[in-house]
């Protein structure tokens, strides 16, 4: 499989009031085309930060300090260094080639705008030319088929509109439509773009299995249930058929039955759309259901990466083993991982996990382990190997 995203030596640091926090420490990770890669870890492991780093949405006071994130664009058949891209270039990618779904769907949706409005926004932003082309074609149809007195009067107007939309569809930055868009009343003349966007929106909502999509589109977020909101957010992310969909704990805030439906949806996304998915979660069970490969992170560092079955049958890193052991099973004694999470401000030296590791050796305190391929496609960062 070919690579889609190559993350090399990426570090993210937060310059807080109390000190510098290494949220991500020299991370190396690949996301391949068409695969669903899961990142598993506890709170503070850096998994959310990894997701945000790809889109360069790290909030202040954090900064991406070093490294490279290469995005292989299939359509353009080129490799783009995301960390060196201009902000304009980045914005063309966000929501378009790479999009993101967040943990709390209720918080992700703006309460004062309708669902349809928020999803259409994506189309209007990234697919303007296509919308204009469709509008122009629709006008063509009107001009051909329309007859009667009313049609006759509006004909010249339609012709003018077709010219306008035709212009937009060819070069999106021409003066006339841009000027019109800014002026208060004249903005209405571009309404056909909104109409086309709404049609696409309703289609998208149907795609994510929201019942009665047309009606839902005119509703406000607070009028929807949690599961529906999350579907709407997913629809928003998939609107422009991105090559990578990043999902940050998308099922965590939902109840279990909805969770199952959501995972089914993600599986379908994989098969139908052919997009890669970066699935961030702290729940191993969820990861096993939906991911092809799983990466385990601890305290900002990558511990282990392997195909999902291999990971669960044959975990190599002590932290992975401990995580799997800690999963409660009926009849089994409840095992916890001794010790406390690594202090973000003063992390342990060498391997971050060594204070809690049952197999710790003296070298673990001094040196950080490098990522090594131990068996086929199975990489570990541990001094045991």
């Amino acid at each position, binding site marked *: 499989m070919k690579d889609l995203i190559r993350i090399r030596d990426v570090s993210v640091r937060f310059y*807080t*009031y*109390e000190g510098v926090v290494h949220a991500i420490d020299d991370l190396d990770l690949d996301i391949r085309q068409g695969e669903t890669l899961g990142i598993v870890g506890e709170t503070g492991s850096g998994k959310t930060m990894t997701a945000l780093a790809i889109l360069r949405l790290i909030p202040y*006071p954090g900064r991406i300090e070093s490294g490279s994130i290469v995005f292989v664009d299939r359509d353009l058949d080129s490799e783009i260094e995301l960390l060196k891209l201009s902000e304009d270039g980045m914005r063309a990618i966000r929501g378009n080639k790479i999009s993101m779904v967040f943990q709390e769907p209720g918080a992700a949706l703006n309460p004062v705008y309708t669902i349809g409005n928020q999803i259409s926004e994506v189309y209007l932003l990234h697919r303007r030319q296509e919308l204009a082309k469709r509008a122009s074609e629709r006008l063509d149809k009107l001009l051909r088929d329309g007859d009667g007195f009313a049609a006759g009067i509006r004909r010249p107007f339609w012709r003018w509109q077709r010219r306008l939309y035709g212009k937009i569809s060819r070069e999106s930055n021409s003066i006339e439509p841009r000027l019109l868009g800014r002026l208060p009343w004249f903005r209405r003349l571009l309404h056909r773009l909104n109409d086309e966007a709404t049609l696409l929106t309703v289609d998208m909502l149907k795609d994510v299995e929201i019942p009665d999509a047309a009606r839902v589109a005119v509703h406000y977020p607070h009028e929807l249930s949690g599961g529906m909101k999350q579907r709407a957010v997913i629809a928003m992310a998939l609107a422009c058929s991105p090559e990578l969909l990043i999902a940050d704990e998308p099922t965590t805030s939902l109840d279990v039955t909805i969770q199952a439906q959501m995972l089914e949806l993600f599986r379908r996304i994989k098969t139908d759309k052919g997009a890669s998915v970066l699935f961030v979660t702290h729940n191993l069970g969820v990861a096993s259901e939906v991911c092809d490969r799983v990466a385990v992170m601890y305290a900002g560092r990558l511990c282990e990466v392997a195909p999902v079955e291999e990971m669960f049958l044959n975990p190599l890193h002590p932290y992975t083993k401990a995580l799997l052991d800690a999963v409660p099973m009926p009849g089994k004694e409840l095992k916890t991982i001794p010790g406390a999470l690594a202090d973000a401000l003063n992390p342990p030296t060498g391997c971050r996990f060594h204070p809690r590791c049952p197999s710790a050796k003296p070298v673990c305190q001094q040196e950080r382990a490098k990522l090594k391929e131990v068996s086929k496609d199975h990489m570990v960062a541990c001094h045991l190997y």
Partner: protein
Amino acid sequence: MSDWKFTARQLVKNPLSLVGIILIFIFVIIAIFAPLIAPAPAYRDPYLIPRDGYSATPQPPSEEHIFGTTEGQYDIFYGVIWGTRSAFRVGLVVIGIVVAIGIVLGSLAGYFGGVIDEVIMRITDIFLAFPALILAMAIVTIMGPSLRSVMIALTIVSWPSYARLIRGDILQVREEDYIEASRGLGASNARVIMRHALPNAIYPTLIMASLDIGAVVLAAAALSFLGLGAPEGYADWGQLTSFARNWIVGPSSDPLKFWYAVTIPGLFIFFFVMGWNLLGDAFRDILDPRLARR
């Protein structure tokens, strides 16, 4: 109580609040040492500004009168120094009483709910239906103009906001588990309110109170300016400024001739109120849970 220490540290680090604290500190010093800075003539009420003659025309700053004199030859310097004491008196007394009333009524309303709550809320609604200064004006008119009337009027006008604020906070806190826990342990209502509910609900009230000291002093100054507060010749900043009304514009050769009569008392009001506002604003920023720690 390390919360307080953290808050105090934050207050000092923030440049704006530091300026506020310094300003207030300066005024406190002035107020405490007023008798030394501007000695009162013997056997007189120190709040009566001494007059140097009876001429109506204000005199510019000189060696004898550091800030000059205003209409009627009242010494401005003396007036603003002792006016600091008046300002503190008005501000602290009014806010003190208002917070006390607010705590009592607000706690009763918030904690017990039901009819008590409804009645108290309707009463506050009635008071809050009036713009503050206008109601205060009406009350002062009825009681006869004096500084005492102003303080009473401002107290009557301000308490409803605090009662509502504390009620709201108690309502929030009431649902928390530790309240039920202490009730389960058999604590009496009064004890629960005083030891558990109030200390946690008090922060927004403190913010508002520190901001309001400035607002109260401003309102009192406005009322005195109109002539509804301190009597003529009393050491009060608003009163001093009202003298300047006739002297805004000097003769055409020197239009700003009487600037000192207008500007100086006003500056004192401005800096005093600003000090409290800076402090209150910084307080608000610090106690805002979202912005507190990064």
